[in-house]
Every structure is written in structure tokens, then in C-alpha cells.
């Protein structure tokens, strides 16, 4: 138990450390490396997996269209799992930046993880494009942080406007996912806008993602006789909530946000969802060729329907690709700095700063989730559509501009 064990133990620790260090070390080849982090495992695994598919599709298209190259350099995407933990998100983004020498980062869906990772991207001067973190604070971190989706205040206001103006409602109950900052944020802004428009929130109830029983909340809501229930959660729970509500004899319409967007919503909620409305980035029956093309390609490749998260990730990847190409066209010398061969150099810093400026100037980009223009706070401004569920189909109802 003396020297030998000590040596053995140190050797074990050292070798593990070296393995950790070399695991993803940059190859130094001439290529463009883009990082992506997300919850591939853990409670929110479906977010990370959807994001991954969206990015994979964008990459596959790049491969067929341009041989997988931008400006003559092959593109590689490194995906890291953060297990749905904020501190793990910070670690993997450090790894992507320092080990893999990425030129830009895609992620995350949950605002809590984006908030943990954003300061690292900011201080390292690496642009980070979050496909779907809606908390306003994420992009407030700094000028290297962008997002492809609208923010909570906008979406909450849209549904409040829709409820009071289009549906003429006065009494609404809220059922929010209390552990999701997305859901809490949406509820907050919905409440503000709805009460400002003269409406009353008659009940505020909560659940947490992963719950399987919602009868208590709904029974209590039923006692307050609302004219509609606003449920700003994810489709995974919404379907169950809808079924339970109908089971308990609640017949009023249900309202929601883009978290509802998924084919599985109808699969699980079935008839219970008829007459529900939710705001979204796109309407599937929108004949827009870009969107229809995306839907077809996604179904062909993955044998299932994309959700909004996959669509936003696809847009995020394409916005970065477009920015890289633009940099190549505008300033080939600066572009050369993005190559992995230039990792850790002053040219790299200058190149990512220029890449940042190009992303920030994104204007009228025709994405599948709407026309994306980044405002001065680096948030996407785009109109929201409100969909109605009729006979098990999602039908375009109205469009509400920012």
C-alpha cells in the first residue's frame, strides 16, 4: 500500500486525464468544425435528439449540394451531449471551443442550458446560435449570442391578443409547466397582456414535465369555470392534459404555444384536442416550397415528421452555413482563418468576429420556420401563425405580426 499503489493510482488518474484531453482534440486539418450541444440523454432527451436530426438534415443537404464543403473546406459537425444539465452544458461548450476548435456553436433548446453556455461562447468570441431558447436573457449575454426563434414576451402576447380579440374571451385559466422556464415565461407574458386587454385569469395551476397525472389541477380549474385554458407546455404533456380535461368534462378550448408542435400531439391527444389553438413558427398546410421541401426531405431521411425544434435547428445550421459562405465570398483572407489549421491564432479570432458580424446582419433569410431577420438584440423577428386543430388536423387560422 505504499509507493506501488500510489504510482498505480496516479497512473490510472493520469491516463484517464490524457484520454479525456485527447478524446476530441482538433486534428489540425484544413476543415471547418461546427459544434452542437444538446440533451441527447436525460429527461429532455427529445429536445437534443430533434435538434440533432435538424442539423443532420442540413448537413446532408450540404453534402449533396456542395459535396459537404463551404468555400472549398469540408464541414464537420461535432455533437456533444449535456445530459440536460446546466453545468454539463458549460463543460461541453468549453470542450467544443478549446478541444475541437469550433468556429460556431449550435444550441441549446432549454434556456437554462443556453444561459450556462452563452458566457463561455461570448468570452471566447465564438458565435453561438440557439435554435430555440426563448428566454430573453440568453441573447442579453452578449453580442456573440443569437437565436432563431421568437422570445417568450412575443409569443405570450400573441396568444393573449388572439384569446381576447379573435376569440373574444374574458376568463381564462393557465396551466403551466412550473419547472420549464419556457412555460413560466410564456404564462407570465400571456397574463400581463391578457389582463391589460381587460381579461381575467381565473385560475393558475401548474404541473411539471414528466408528470403523468393531471386530474387534480384540472378538477380545480373546472371549478373556476374558465372560457379557455392556456397550456404553454410541450406536446408530450399537452396531449395527456387534453384527454384528462375531456374525461373530467371540461369542454372549453385549449390554447398553447410552439411547444405543442409535433405530429405526436394529435396521436396522443386524439379527439380531445379538437377546437384547440396554438401559436407556431409554421403551418404544415402552408404551401411555401422551402417548408414543403424540408418536410418531404425530413420524412424521407428519418421516417417521421419533424417538430418545430428540428425545424429551428435546421434553420440555425443553414444560417451559419450561409454566413460562412458569405464570409468566403466577401473576404477570402479572413475566411482562411476559420480553417482548423488556424486554430488558436489571431487570424481565427478575426475570422470569427467577422462571422459574427455577418450572422448579426441576417436579414430576410427564408428559413423553414419563417422569414428570419435578426434585430439589434440578436433575436429573430418573424410573424407567428396561430393554428387550429380541427378533426385531427392542424389548420392555419391567422397570422400575427410582431
Amino acid at each position: 500500500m505504499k509507493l506501488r499503489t500510489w504510482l498505480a493510482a496516479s497512473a490510472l488518474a493520469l491516463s484517464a486525464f490524457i484520454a479525456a484531453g485527447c478524446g476530441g482534440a482538433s486534428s489540425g486539418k484544413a476543415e471547418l468544425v461546427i459544434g452542437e450541444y444538446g440533451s441527447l440523454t436525460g429527461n429532455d432527451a427529445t429536445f437534443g435528439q430533434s435538434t440533432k436530426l435538424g442539423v443532420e438534415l442540413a448537413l446532408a443537404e450540404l453534402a449533396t449540394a456542395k459535396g459537404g464543403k463551404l468555400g472549398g473546406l469540408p464541414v464537420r459537425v461535432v455533437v456533444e451531449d449535456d445530459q440536460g444539465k446546466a453545468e454539463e452544458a458549460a463543460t461541453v461548450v468549453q470542450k467544443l471551443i478549446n478541444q475541437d476548435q469550433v468556429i460556431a456553436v449550435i444550441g441549446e433548446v432549454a434556456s437554462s442550458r443556453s444561459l450556462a453556455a452563452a458566457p463561455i461562447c461570448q468570452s471566447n468570441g465564438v458565435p453561438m446560435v440557439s435554435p430555440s431558447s426563448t428566454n430573453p436573457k440568453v441573447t442579453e449575454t452578449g453580442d456573440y449570442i443569437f437565436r432563431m426563434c421568437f422570445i417568450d414576451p412575443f409569443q405570450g402576447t400573441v396568444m393573449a391578443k388572439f384569446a381576447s380579440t379573435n376569440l373574444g374571451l374574458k376568463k381564462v385559466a393557465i396551466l403551466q409547466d412550473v419547472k420549464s422556464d419556457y412555460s413560466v415565461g410564456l404564462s407570465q407574458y400571456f397574463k400581463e397582456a391578457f389582463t391589460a386587454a381587460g381579461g381575467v385569469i381565473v385560475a393558475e395551476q401548474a404541473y411539471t414535465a414528466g408528470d403523468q397525472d393531471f386530474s387534480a389541477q384540472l378538477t380545480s380549474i373546472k371549478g373556476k369555470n374558465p372560457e379557455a385554458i392556456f397550456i404553454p407546455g410541450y406536446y408530450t404533456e399537452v396531449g395527456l392534459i387534453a384527454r384528462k380535461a375531456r374525461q373530467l368534462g371540461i369542454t372549453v378550448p385549449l390554447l398553447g404555444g410552439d411547444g405543442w408542435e409535433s405530429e405526436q400531439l394529435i396521436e396522443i391527444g386524439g379527439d380531445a384536442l379538437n377546437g384547440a389553438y396554438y401559436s407556431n413558427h409554421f403551418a404544415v398546410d402552408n404551401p411555401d416550397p422551402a417548408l414543403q421541401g424540408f418536410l418531404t426531405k425530413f420524412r424521407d431521411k428519418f421516417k417521421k415528421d419533424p417538430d418545430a425544434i428540428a425545424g429551428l435547428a435546421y434553420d440555425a445550421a443553414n444560417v451559419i452555413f450561409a454566413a460562412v459562405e458569405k464570409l468566403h465570398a466577401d473576404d477570402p483572407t479572413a475566411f482562411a482563418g476559420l480553417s482548423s489549421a488556424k486554430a488558436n491564432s489571431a487570424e481565427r479570432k478575426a475570422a470569427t468576429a467577422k462571422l459574427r458580424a455577418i450572422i448579426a446582419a441576417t436579414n430576410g433569410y427564408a428559413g423553414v420556420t419563417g422569414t428570419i431577420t435578426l434585430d439589434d438584440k440578436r433575436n429573430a423577428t418573424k410573424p407567428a401563425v396561430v393554428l387550429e386543430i380541427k378533426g385531427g388536423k392542424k389548420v392555419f387560422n391567422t397570422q400575427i405580426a410582431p
Partner: protein
Amino acid sequence: MSEFLQQLVNGITWGSVYALIALGYTMVYGILRLINFAHGDIYMLGAFMGLFAARWFNAAGDPSPMKAVLVLLTSMLICALIGMLIERLAYKPVRKSPRLSALITAIGVSLLIENGGVLVFGASPQFFPQIIPEKNIALGMGVTLSNQQMIVLIVSVVLMFGLRMLVLHTRVGKAMQAVSHNHMAAALMGISVDRIVTFTFMIGSSLAAAAGVLVALQSPKIEPYMGIMPGLKAFVAAVLGGIGNIPGAVVGGLVMGVAEVLVTGYISPTYRDAIAFVLLIVILLVRPAGIFGKAVTEKV
């Protein structure tokens, strides 16, 4: 009043699910003094096995009570086998080790099943088919109960009684009691301790699988991580009732279910996850061995 009665009905249905999971926890604990952290994951596997069985029998396309029973039994059987496998491969080698090592093994098994589940079933939730078409039954006083809730209640009660009969009135049940009192003495009486332990795991796992199918029936979203919270709370329910005690697990499960639903409905839903533990701490401080547990005087 009708709202309160409705909440009570909701609570009892939900509690009966906790009770089913808690039974498995309590049985394994009674015999091995092991907190089987993977038990909640068996519940998850039960739901998935039910899903595959339902597809196999086309139980949703052409529903019949016969097929529903078949789905339930298939899932229970497969999970019993999985339980046996886990016990043989992972727990048996650490049975003589310090208890904390066994606990870490259980945690390892739990992580393995969850993350293996992501690989095999995929991370996105899947939806359990409607093998019994839903109908609402009005109970009067404004209280409704769905036929699915009713089935959950009936099946739970049948399984609990079955378990009680098994433990109290069969040879193998008596052997289980003997082993839970004292391994050594039971072995000296000619009981094969290994076999009884394996058997206990199989029974416990099949009960968890039944709970999985029953929950999936009324709340059909199933995913690989669905077992963590119910597993944890069912364990709390088992401790609440007095761990190792079978009627205690049932009562603990029902108390937990009703308490959760009442807190959600009347105080604040945000404290739903906390109430289970508050209740637990209060009860343990008053009755340190749980509601039905016997205070064991330690021998010197």
C-alpha cells in the same frame, strides 16, 4: 363538495399505482435490505413491454378484454424474467458486500436501464395504444370515473390480494417470510435462500410491470426516463407504510396518492413533489418505523 370527492377519487386511483410499485420495493427490501433503485425502471420497461405486446396482438386495432389481459400478463412475464436476470447478474455477486456497495450497484443498474432504454426505444416519447376504449362513468354528485381508472383500481386490488394470499398461505410465501426474518436460520431450515430471493425479484418486477401497463393505459405517454420520479415516490410510500410491510406499502401508496392530489388541487401544484417528503419526515419523526412498521429493538 363534488370537487373534493372528485379529487379523492383521482387520488385513490393514482395512489393505487404507487401502491403497486411500492409493493415490489417493500418485498425486495424485506428480504435483502436493499433499496432497489432500478425498480422504477422496471416499471418503465413494463410499460414498453406492454406497448410491444399490444402491437403484437393488435390489441388497439381490434380491442377485446381478452387481449388486454394478455397484454398485461405478457408484460408481467417478460419483466419477471428481466428482474430475475438483474438479480442473478448484478445483485447476487454483491449480496455479501457492504450494503452501500449493493446500493451503488442498484444505481448502476438503474442508469443502465434508463440510458439503454434511450438507445433501444429512442428518446422521444411513444404512445401507448388504446387497448381499452375510454368511457366515462358518472358516479353521481358530479364525480366521474373513467372505465380505465376503474380498471386500474380493480387490477391493483386483485394483484394486491393475490400477493397477500401468496405470502401468507403458500409454501413459497412462508419461505419468503422466513428468509426476510433471518437468512441463516431460513437456510438451516432447508430453504434455498437463493431461489427465494430470485422469486421475490420476479414477483416484485412483475408487479412493477403491471403498474407500468396500468399507468400507460390512462396516461399513454411512455419514455425511458418515466420511472425515476414514480420509483422514488413509491419508495417513499413504502417507507411511509413501514418498509418491508406489505399492507403498509398499500396504505403508504394510497396516502401518498391522495396527499399529492389534494396538495395539487388545494394548496399549490408546485409543492406536489415536496409534499411526499414533508409527509414522510413528519411521519418518521412521530413513528420512526413508519405507519405499520414494528419498532425493532436492537440486539446487543
